[in-house]
């Protein structure tokens, strides 16, 4: 069973890398980009076959290691 984890900065946390990408897009002629936020995408291959258990397990992994919940949100997709 696969788990897909998206980790993004919380609202209100400055993302200087996102800002730099936004400016670069503007200078390349891609207008109309109001904001850019960048994050991480992690794929996990799990032995677990029960989707609910898999999700709970991956959420625990996010809270313990994969995300720093002081500044980051995470979302978990199973399947």
């Amino acid at each position, binding site marked *: 069973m696969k788990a897909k984890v998206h980790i993004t900065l919380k609202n209100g*946390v*400055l993302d*200087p*890398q996102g800002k*730099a990408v936004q400016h670069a897009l503007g200078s390349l002629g891609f207008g109309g980009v109001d904001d850019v936020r960048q994050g991480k995408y992690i794929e996990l291959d799990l032995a677990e076959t029960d989707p609910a258990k898999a999700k709970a397990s991956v959420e625990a992994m996010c809270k313990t*290691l*994969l995300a*720093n919940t*002081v*500044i980051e949100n995470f979302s978990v997709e199973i399947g």
Partner: protein
Amino acid sequence: MKAAVIVFPGSNCDRDVAVALEASMGAKPLMIWHRDTELPPLDLIVVPGGFSYGDYLRSGAMAAHSPVMREVKARAEQGAFVLGICNGFQILTEAGLLPGVLMRNAGLKFVCRDVCLRVEATNSAFTKGYAPGQVIRAPVAHHDGNWFTDPDTHKRVEDEGQVAFRYCDEGGSLSPQSNPNGSLANIAGVFNERRNVLGLMPHPERLADAMLGGTDGKPMFDGLVEALS
């Protein structure tokens, strides 16, 4: 005083801080490999600078969960003193021993130069060797030194006097220009509530000997030896 320096794969300031400690305490500190899970009795544990685990995932995130850190956390809870410098500061925040998080520098560049620091609190073993408000010089060398936390935690850190050092100009004034990395409220170093854990991004061990061009970092090690011997 019994002191130890934790060594992770990728630590690169472990020997520098060992030299600074030896100069102040007259004996070599123990060097503890990150896989060790049993520590002898210790008064001071230093988590040194470097790039532990290649900064994978987030700076300090992997090291914070390494076997030795469980023991370091337990010792801190028992009252041992723990000093985290640069990557060590990142590791201590990731381990939950210190508030906040060290984000990518606001200017996105690795910053490697001397900065001025204002000593904000002298009521700790780490900072008792300094005068309140004293301005000292210290080298910084980091990519992720932008200290950040939520407004409630920031207020608590300020109210409890947990700010140890702030980036300032030579006269001791705070400004965005004197902030090398965008840290919230120019914060360069913070204590835990009990003041037995300190993390800071600048490197006092790199200016602890006149041969290195200055001794502004030495009072930190001398103060620890005096307080813990």
